[in-house]
C-alpha cells in the first residue's frame, strides 16, 4: 500500500512510493517516553537487492527532504533531491546497489507525523504528536529494514540531518553497518544552529493561521510563517560568497530602486521564491518537530559526553566529507567526528572539499565529492564481494 500525502498530488505520473504499516504489536518506542502505535513509515527503493542481501545502501534525508531521493517528487514533479549522486552509473550506483530511502518519523510525506490522522481521535495529530529525536528516526528505519529482511547495510549515508542519522546508525546498530558516509554534519547541533531553528519556529507560531498547531482542522495553513522560516533557513544553506556570486546587488527592475518595500534586489526575489514554493510541499508542524529533533541531537551526551564512546567497537569504515564554505556544519565539526572515531580506533577517512556553495554543496554537482564517494563505495563493495 502506498503512503498517504498531505496535499493533492500535482505530479500524477510520479511514483508514489511504498509504506509499511506497523500495528500495535510493533509499537515504536520513542525517546520522549511515549510509544507510537499503529504507525507508518513511507519509503522508496531503487535498484535490486542481490541474493546475498549484501548490497543495500540506506540514504537518510535532511530536514526538508523525503524518500524521493532519485525519482520525481510526487507533489512538485521536480527531480529527486539527490539525483546528482544516486542513480544508474552514479557514485551511489542503483545498477549495483539496492538503495533505500525512508521519510523520517515526524515528516510529512507519508510517514507518521503531526499532519497524519491520529487513529485515537480520527483527527490530525497536530501538536499531540509526540516529540521525536534523530534516534527515534533511526529506530524506525531499523524496523523498516527488519520488515524488508535486510540485516546489514553495505553503506548508510546522508548529508546534514541525514549525516546525523548516519552517526546515530553507527552508534545504535554498529553490527548492522558495514560502512558509513556522513556528509556536512555534526555530532551535536550547535547553539547557533539551534538559534536559527528557533527563529524559524517562532515565525511559524507567530502566523495567526497556525492556530496553536490545529490549523488543519480549520482548513488553514500558516504559509507566511513557514515561508519566512524557509527563507531564514535558506540563507544558512548558502554562503556569503555564493550569494555575492549569484546575485550581488543586482536589481529586479533595471530601471532602478523603487523607494518602496517590494523586492528590489534579485536576492530578495530568490528568497521569496524559496519560501513560496516550500509551503506547497511541506507541513508547518512537521517543520517544528524535525527542527526540534535536530536541536536535541547530541550524540556524545548519550555516552557521558565522550563522543569516542559512541563508536567504541564499531567495525564500520567511515568516510566523512565536509565543505570549506559550510558555516552551518563547518569542517571543524566534521573533523571532531573524525578525531572521535580515531580515538575509538575506528577506520576513518576525512575529506574537506573546496567550494563556495556553502552547506547546500552536498546536494549539488561537486565532482570531488562524487569521486570520493565513488572510490570509497567501490573499495567497500570490493571488500564485501559485492559485484
Amino acid at each position: 500500500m502506498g503512503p498517504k500525502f498531505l496535499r493533492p498530488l500535482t505530479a500524477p505520473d510520479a511514483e508514489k512510493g511504498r509504506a509499511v504499516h506497523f500495528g500495535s504489536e510493533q509499537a515504536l518506542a520513542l525517546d520522549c517516553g511515549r510509544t507510537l502505535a499503529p504507525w507508518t513509515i513511507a519509503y522508496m527503493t531503487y535498484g535490486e537487492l542481490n541474493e546475498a542481501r549484501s548490497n543495500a545502501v540506506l540514504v537518510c534525508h535532511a530536514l526538508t527532504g523525503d524518500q524521493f531521493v532519485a525519482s520525481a517528487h510526487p507533489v512538485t514533479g521536480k527531480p529527486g533531491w539527490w539525483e546528482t549522486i544516486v542513480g544508474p552509473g552514479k557514485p551511489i550506483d542503483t545498477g549495483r546497489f539496492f538503495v533505500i530511502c525512508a521519510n523520517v518519523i515526524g515528516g510529512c510525506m507519508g510517514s507518521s507525523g503531526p499532519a497524519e490522522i491520529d487513529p485515537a481521535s480520527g483527527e490530525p495529530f497536530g501538536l499531540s504528536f509526540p516529540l521525536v529525536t534523530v534516534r527515534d528516526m533511526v529506530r524506525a528505519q531499523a524496523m523498516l529494514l527488519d520488515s524488508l529482511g535486510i540485516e546489514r547495510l553495505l553503506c548508510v549515508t546522508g548529508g546534514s540531518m541525514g549525516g546525523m542519522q548516519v552517526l546515530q546508525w553507527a552508534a545504535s546498530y554498529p553490527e548492522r553497518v558495514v560502512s558509513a558516509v556522513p556528509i556536512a554534519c555534526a555530532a551535536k547541533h550547535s547553539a547557533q544552529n539551534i538559534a536559527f531553528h528557533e527563529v524559524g519556529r517562532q515565525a511559524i507560531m507567530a502566523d495567526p493561521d497556525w492556530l496553536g498547531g490545529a490549523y488543519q482542522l480549520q482548513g488553514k495553513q500558516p504559509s507566511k510563517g513557514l515561508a519566512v522560516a524557509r527563507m531564514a533557513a535558506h540563507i544558512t544553506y548558502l554562503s556569503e560568497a555564493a550569494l555575492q556570486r549569484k546575485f550581488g546587488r543586482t536589481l529586479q527592475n533595471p530601471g532602478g530602486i523603487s523607494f518602496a518595500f517590494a523586492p528590489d534586489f534579485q536576492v530578495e526575489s530568490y528568497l521569496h521564491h524559496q519560501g513560496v514554493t516550500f509551503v506547497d510541499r511541506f507541513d508547518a508542524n512537521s517543520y517544528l518537530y524535525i527542527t526540534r529533533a535536530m536541536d536535541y541531537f547530541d550524540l556524545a551526551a548519550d555516552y557521558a559526553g565522550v563522543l569516542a564512546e559512541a563508536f567504541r567497537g564499531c567495525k564500520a569504515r567511515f568516510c566523512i566529507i565536509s565543505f570549506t564554505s559550510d558555516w552551518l556544519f563547518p569542517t571543524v565539526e566534521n573533523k571532531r567526528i573524525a578525531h572521535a572515531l580515531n580515538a575509538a580506533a575506528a577506520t576513518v577517512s576525512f575529506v574537506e572539499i573546496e567550494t563556495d556553495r556553502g552547506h547546500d554543496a552536498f546536494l549539488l554537482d561537486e565532482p570531488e565529492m562524487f569521486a570520493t564517494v565513488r572510490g570509497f563505495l567501490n573499495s567497500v563493495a570490493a571488500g564485501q564481494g559485492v559485484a
Partner: protein
Amino acid sequence: MAVMRPDLAAIAEMIPQGARVLDVGCGDGALLEYLTAAKNVDGRGLELSQQNVNACVARGLAVIQGDADTDLGEYPSQVFDVVILSQTIQATRNPKGVLGQLLRIGRRTAVSLPNFGHWRVRLNLLASGRMPRTKALGYEWYDTPNIHLCTIADFAALAKEAGGEIERALALSEDGRTRAMRTDAWSPNLFAEGAIFLLRAR
C-alpha cells in the same frame, strides 16, 4: 609493488608485521597500501592534498585530510607503533614541533629526508653562487615547498633537541641503496643523497 621509492622501501623494512601505523604526509597512499598488503599493518594516513586523499580513499585506505603542522595535537599519545614522516619534514612550517608531536604519538618514528649537505648541493652553491637546484630538489628558491631543508647532521641534532633518540640511521645513496651510518661521521653528510632515521622518545 612494482617499483617503490628507495626511502619508502627502507622505511617499510623497519615496520613490524601487524603494526599500527600512521603515515603523516602519506601522498597517494602507495606506502600505506604496500604496508597493508605486505605487513598486514593497521594503517592510517594524514595528507594535505585533496586529490591525494581521494586517491587514498579510492584505494580503501583510512586517510584524513589535514595539516601536520596543525592537526597532530589532536591525536592521543602513544597510540601508534610507528609514525612515518617521509620526505615531508622539510615542507613543514615547524619541523621541531612536528617531530615532537610524532615522538609523542608513536612508540617509534620513521623519518626520511633529502640531505642538503650532499656534495653536489654544496658544490652547486659554491660554484654558481645561486641557490642549488638538484635532481632531488628541483625547485627555484622562491617557489619551493621545501622551506626547511637540512643536512643529516642538522636533523640528528634536531632529533635530540626534540626529545628523540636515534635507534637506526641509514644513508641513502644516489643509486637508491641504503646502508647503516653513524650520524656524527662526516662522510654520510657529504655523500648521502638522503637519510632514513628510526627514532623513539628519550
